[in-house]
Structure formats: C-alpha cells, structure tokens
C-alpha cells in the first residue's frame, strides 16, 4: 500500500505494447528500493488476451477492464475506470507511457484523483524514501529532477525507449476483472475511426525521424538505400535543394529554408554539406547524424554524430546494424 505501484499498460491488437514492459522495468527498480507491490491495469479491447502474456512477469495482479463501452478509446471512460482502479488500490505511484494515450489520460486521471503528475520522464529511481523522476524541459535543453510534495498519488509518464524493458521472471500472476460502470451517454468525446499511416511513411514536417539525401546521391534510383533505412526506422525521406534541382527527388520532400522546415528527434543527413540554406530547415533537430565524404563539410559543426565516409558504403551498413538491434 505505502509504495504500491500501478502500471497502466497499453494494449494493441490483442498484445502488449512495448512501453508496458518498459514501465514494468521501471516499476521493478523503484519497488526494489522502496518495497511495495506492482500491479498492472489494462483497459480496452483485447485487454484480457494481452493480460495473459504478462502473467510471467512477477506482478502481484493484473487488472483488466474490457467492457463494450471501452472498446474504443475515450478519455472520459478510461479516466473514470482508471481513477476507480487507483482509488480502490490506493496506489502511491501510477506509471503510464508518455504516449498519445498516456499524455491524454494521465493528467485527466490525475485531476480526477487529485494527484500530481510528472510528464514525459526519462528516468525514475528512488533516492532514499523519495521517488525521483528526471524529465527534460525546454525541449531537452535542460533536465529537472522532481519529487512530489506530500503523499498524493504520483502519476509518472515515462518516455518510450528510455528504460530497459522488463524480462519475464516466471511465476503466475492472477488476472482480476474490473467492471466499469461507465455508460455510453456519459461519454462526450470518443474515437470513431482510426487512420493508420499510409504507406508507412510519416509526413516530413511531423516525422520523428528523417533520412535526407543530398546531391551526392547522384541518381534518383540511389534514394532506395535511404528508403530502406527510412522504412526500418519508420522515418520520412527528405532531400536537399541540390538533389531536388538535379531531379533526384520531388520538390515536395525538399528540406531547407525555402522548402520544408522540420524538427525531428533524429535527422540523418547523407551526403549533405550543410550550407545555411539547408541548415535553416533542420537545425532544430534533436539529434543530427551527418555522413559525408568531406571532413570539412559545415554540417559536422552542427551534427551530434558524424561519420566521414562514402554514404554508399555507410548507409547500407548502418541499415544492417540497425536491423540487428531493432
């Protein structure tokens, strides 16, 4: 009770989303130091099936809510159910993923349950008796470590890919059903349709990862090696103005001052020199990887990581190595 943790897991297609295991991993670290049980709550269509796959993770129990009303996501229904579960279990910490659902649900439940929430954290650990969360602020230009004041339930949303996912640890976990008492007419906003990404490639201006080719691509067909990398990373493909002018890529994917201005988490620039007109379009990218034959290319001054080499050699190797770990 004192330090019990509830992990709010996310279900997708009858299985568990990877973030859930990461949350359990984080919860284990905290509980190892603070004591307290770890429960997991799953809501929505396919929750029970997903719960089955989590029974070997050493959790105290898995709470499943899978009513008709919860089949499609709605903030109000899920928030009502989750806050109910939280109140019943008197949890001290509630971990959610910093995902679209977590970001939407977390604060609403926090408000309902009069808790306190730390959003988008990259690390959670115990420092003495306090649970400290580290989170980026100012778009990652600084970090803060934050603790709750008092003992309100502490909602903590954690960024995907920041904590190692938990491995199965054996044992069986009971699955408990939670009956929601939410009615359809109480829900005022509900998801009515889902549109998966077309062609698997996100829009340049909204992509989290972008792979861009410059004039060094030499040919339209050569963009295939960038596309392979992009497909692997779920990235968008961009081109410099020089590449577009030379006819290697359509103007719709031109990145730069007079093209698209992008702001991804990861920008991989292949054969791009980094003149200011191009930089102006992507310099706010969180992480920039530059691959260029010329060690003096200006892009290296702005990049986070750089490799001096022939992109035709480096890019396929990079794709291969990534494939091994993803």
């Amino acid at each position, binding site marked *: 009770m004192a330090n019990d943790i509830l992990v709010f897991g996310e279900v997708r297609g009858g299985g568990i989303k990877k973030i859930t295991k990461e949350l359990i991993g984080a919860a284990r670290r905290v509980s190892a130091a603070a004591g307290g049980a770890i429960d997991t709550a799953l809501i929505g269509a396919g929750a029970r099936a997903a719960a089955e796959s989590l029974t070997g993770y050493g959790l105290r129990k898995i709470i499943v809510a899978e009513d008709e009303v919860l089949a499609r996501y709605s903030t109000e229904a899920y928030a009502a159910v989750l806050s109910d579960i939280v109140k019943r279990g008197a949890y001290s910490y509630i971990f959610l993923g910093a995902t679209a659902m977590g970001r939407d649900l977390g604060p609403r439940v926090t408000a309902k349950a009069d808790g306190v929430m730390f959003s988008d954290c990259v690390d959670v650990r115990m420092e003495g008796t306090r649970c400290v969360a580290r989170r980026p602020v100012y778009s990652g230009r600084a970090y803060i470590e934050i603790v709750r004041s008092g003992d309100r339930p502490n909602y903590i949303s954690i960024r995907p890919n920041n904590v190692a996912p938990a491995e199965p640890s054996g044992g069986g976990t009971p699955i408990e059903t939670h009956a929601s008492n939410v009615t359809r007419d109480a829900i005022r906003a509900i998801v009515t349709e889902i549109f998966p990404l077309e062609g698997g490639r996100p829009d340049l201006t909204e992509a989290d990862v972008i792979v861009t080719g410059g004039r060094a691509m030499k040919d339209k067909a050569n963009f295939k090696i960038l596309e392979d990398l992009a497909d692997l990373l779920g990235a968008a493909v961009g081109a410099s103005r020089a590449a577009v002018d030379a006819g290697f890529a359509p103007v719709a994917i031109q990145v730069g*001052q*007079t093209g698209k201005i992008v702001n991804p988490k990861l920008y991989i620039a292949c054969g791009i020199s980094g003149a*200011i*007109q191009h930089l102006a379009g992507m310099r706010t990218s969180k992480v920039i990887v530059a691959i260029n034959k010329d060690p003096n290319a200006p892009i290296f001054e702005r990049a986070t990581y750089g490799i001096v080499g022939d992109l035709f050699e480096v890019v396929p190797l990079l794709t291969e190595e990534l494939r091994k770990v993803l």
Partner: protein
Amino acid sequence: MTIQGIVFLVFFVAVLAVFGLIVRLLYRILRAAKPEDRFDRWGDRIKAVLVYVCAQARVLAKPAGMGHFVIFWGFIFITIGTLDHMLGQLIPGLGLERIVGRRLGSAFILLQDVFGVLVIGALAVAAVRRFIQKPERLKIDDPAAPRQAALILALIFVLILFMYGLKGTEILEGSARLTKTNAPVSFSAAEMMRGWHLNVPLANDVFSWGHNLVIFFFLLFIPFSKHIHILGAIPNVFFRNLGRPGALSRMNFEDESAEKFGVSELGDFTWKQTLDLCACTECGRCQVACPAHATKKPLSPFRVIHRLRAQLMRDKGGLFAKGAGVLKPTPVIPENVSEDEIWACTTCGACVQECPTFIEHVQKIVDLRRFLVLTESRFPAEVQPVFKNMEVNYNPWAIGYSSRADWAAGLGVPLASEKRSFDVLFWVGCSGSFDQRAQKVSRSVVRLMQLAGVDFAILGTEEKCCGETARRMGNEYLAQTLIQANIETLKKYKFNTIVTACPHGLNTFLAEYPQFGLSVPAVHHSEFLLGLLSKGALKARRIETLRGAYHDSCYLGRYNGVMREPRALLSRSTKRVAEFGRRGRSSFCCGAGGGRMWMEETLGSRINEDRARELLGLGVDHVFTACPFCLTMFEDALKTLGREDVHALDVAEVLLEACSR
C-alpha cells in the same frame, strides 16, 4: 483674314482647348496624388534637364539612341517651324524672322531643312529595327503597342513630307525667305514638284492643311499613347531623384486608424510616381537590363510601367467628367500587375539606371509589396518565418540572437560595450554572424584589421539585423523597428566610421538610416582595406596562381559606386583578374536581393545560374565577390552546375591570403 484663316483659327482654338483640357486633367491627377518633395535643388534639376534632355545623355548611352537624338531635335525644330507657320496663318506677317531677326531665322530654316532628312533616315532605321529586327527590349505583350509605334513613325514621316511639300510649294510660289542656301532640301523638293505641273497655290494649301491636321491629330493623340512622354519626360527629368538611388521612401505610421498601407490603386502613388507613368518612352531598356526578365520570369519593368500607364488612361475618367483628377479606384493587383511579378524583383536597380527619363520602377514595386505585406499579410509562405525570426531573434534564420558573436570566439575581438569609444565599428551583419561560409569572411576582415592595428570593435549581441531585407520585401514596419533599435544602440558609442562586408548593410546605412536620424560615415570593407594597404598598414604579396573574375554586386557597384576599390585590392593580391562582360554598373544580379534570398525560385530559370554560366565562359577557376549574398549564390549555382572545381572567394579572404605569405 481669309475664310481659310478663320476655319484654321477655329480648329486651332478647338484643338488647343481640348489639348488644354487634357493637360489640365493630367495636372489635376498629379495634384490629387500623394505628395512628394522634389522641389529642392533647382540648380541641379536644371542641370539634369540640360544633360539628360537637351544632350540626351542617357539616351545616347546606347548607340541606337542616336536615332532618338535626331528625331528629338528634329521634332523640336520642326515644331518651332510649325508654330512659325501657324502664327503666320493667324496673323500674316508674324513669324520667327520677325522675332529673332533675319540671320538667326535663316539659320533656323537651314537646321530644320537638314534635320528633316536626318529624321527620315532615323525613322527608316527605327522601322527596320522595330518591325524587321524585332529586338528583345521592344517585346511587350500588348498588340496595341506596335500599332501605336507604326502610327507614330508614319505620322512623323508624313509630317515631314508635308513640311517639304509646304516649303517646296512656297519656293515655287516664289519665296523670299527660303533660298537655295538655307533650304537646300526644300529646293530639291521644289524642283521635283515643278515637273508635276501642280496647281501650286492649291498644293500649298493642301500641304499646309495636311501639315496642320497631322499636328492637331498628334496633339490629341499623344496623351493617349506612349507619346505622352513628350509631355511627361522633361518634367520627369527635372523632378528626378537627386538623393541616393538606394534609398526607399520612408513610411509614416503615426496615423493609428489607417486601414491601408502601401499602394493598391493608382491613386495611392505620389505625383512623381504618377508622372513617371507619363514619361515612359517604351524604349524597353529596363526590360533587357532586368535579371528577372532575362531568366524568363513574368516580371519586366517595361511591362509594369506600360500596364500602369494603360490603367492610368482607363482610370482617369473622361475629359469633361465632373470629378476630373480623381482616379477610379481600380486595384493594381492582380488586374494590371500580378503577385508573381511583384515578388520576382531583386531590386537590383538596373532598370532605374537604364531609364532615359528617370522612371523609378523599384520604388513602385516595393510600394506594391508594402500593400501586400502590411495591409493584406499576403506574401510567399517561405517569407513568414523570416519575418518572425527577425522580430524575435533579429536575424532571418531561427538562430538565437545570443549567439550572434559566437563566430568571433577566441579571436580577441573587442566589444563596443567594453571599449565604448573607438575608431571603426565593424558591422558584421546577419550573414557574417551566422552563416558559416560568411563567418569565414568576417574572420578574415578581423584578422586583417588586427594585422593593421586598427582600433575597432563589434556590437556583438547588441547588433540586430540592419533591416534592409525586410524593407525591400515591403515590411516597412518591421524594418523601421529594427532600424530604430539599431540607431539607439549605435548612439551609445563613439566611433568614426562603420565598416561592413555587406553591401546591403552599407547601402542602408548610407542611404536610409539618415531618414531616421542617424548619418554616420560608412564604407565597404574593400574600401577600408584598400586604405590600409595604401597606407602601408598591410603588406600584400601577389598570389601568382590565383586567377579569377570580379563580380560587381548590385548594391555595391550600381547603387554605391564602389567598383574601383575591390579591383585595386585584387590586383595587389592576385596575378590576373578577368572581367565579366556585364560588369561595373552594368553588372548582372546574383539573384538574392530584394528578399529573393529567402524565397524559392520556381519560375523561369535561375538568375544565379545565368551569372555562373557567364563566369564559366570566362575560363577562370575563381570568382571574387564582395557580398555575402553573391558569395552564397555563386557557390549554390556552381554546385548545381556541377562545377565545384570553381571557387568563390570574398576579396577579404584573398587579401588575407596575400598578406599572410
């Protein structure tokens, strides 16, 4: 008075009256237009008329202008002769001779007689050029234009024929004042006509009436054709811009209830801008000088003025209309000038420089941009982030203003805020501060100044964008905000000169900052560095292997006359310097001015590539520039053309290399 005489008198008075109404209408339009102060420096203005009207200086700048010189003076003499003739018809016995005396009168007759032939020759050449050779500069998408031109040429030709006919028959009738000596051509005409067995007095009357009718037709026709320039050109030269060519007008934002800014209808122009429209000779020289036109953009300064004049003719209303002088509020955009045309302008000023009648095309385009930007917030999408960046971070790129001086890290560059009083303020500019390529130029300048022991400082993070590019794009409000902020900052320190590596900054300090209360000496870095070299504060050894061509930036050469100094620097630093065909004041724009640097170039071909091709044709492996925009444009173009073996260097970089050996 004879019946003929009375009829003539009636015609004369009627035509003069209508002509008078026309002139009055034009005058009223000018009176109703926005004010502009061009009433200073009468001495210089009169001089301008002598040089550019009487001596036709700009017209003669191109060989074909000789034709106009002949037609112009010929027409004047013929007109005087016509007046003489008409006066004689009204009041027999009254004439030129009576006024100026026999000798002068006779000399004048000779002048007129000879010029008539010269004019015919010029007309023939003109007809051949216009209708057979069809030069680029005369191309205009208005079918009425060649028709009008043909009519004018024909009319003048007929007029001269009638003049010779008139004088010839006068000789046949036995004239005292026309002799073989002072009217040789008319005499030959007379001889020719003698064989025709004409009824001479009748023929004389016919030629006389024919001549007068042509003149009357001309008087009523000119205002509605390009020949309105006969009325407009001379005053337009008189009221020419005597200030620096690189100064745009200053807008006043005091009226907080103003709903409209800039020009959206003809009535928004000043009287001088309206007069400009009446001064266009349709020579098309602006068109051939225009880099946008040369690269097949829809913009041609010729077309803009032509369309505006046509609109003026339509919007002016009837001669006898009640509210004469008030123009109809027809929008200029897009009916007469499209947005594509307006944004295609690089403000290079070649059109203004070429114009024989001193029309100011660039200011009109900027005024139209002001309307689009300030009133309608309508401008190319790529420009909005540029405006926002200048508002928030005082530079066109979204780079934090606090890193403006990072380029100087470790170089020991003094800050104005520390030194407070110094000789030279090195104005680094946005490119020089943030663009990695241009930063190298800034460092070169600093290194050279340090070598020479110059007492200088930079503003560092206190420096804001000079505002030039915002002003050229029509965002006068933003430009003024930046200008005023910079002036505040500059006033805090004591220094003697501003030295800058950016011609756009230079131009705005020289031509525009004084409009806002700051007049401070400013020179281009090439001028300053040459001074140091000449004084011996810098020693350069020529780099024998460096061969290149020097490119004159529009804002340095054409707008501010700095052409000798960069060349002098280069001749001390390199072995040979080649020259572009289009050089000096006739240099061809790199394409980045007028805010075009921030806009995508989707129409026609690329201006910078055109210039790069010209460079490649010179067979050198370097181009020397003195402007960060030109530097970027050349590097971009050379890359696109696959010629990265040719390098662009700023003159300061070259000099530093030469001083470091």
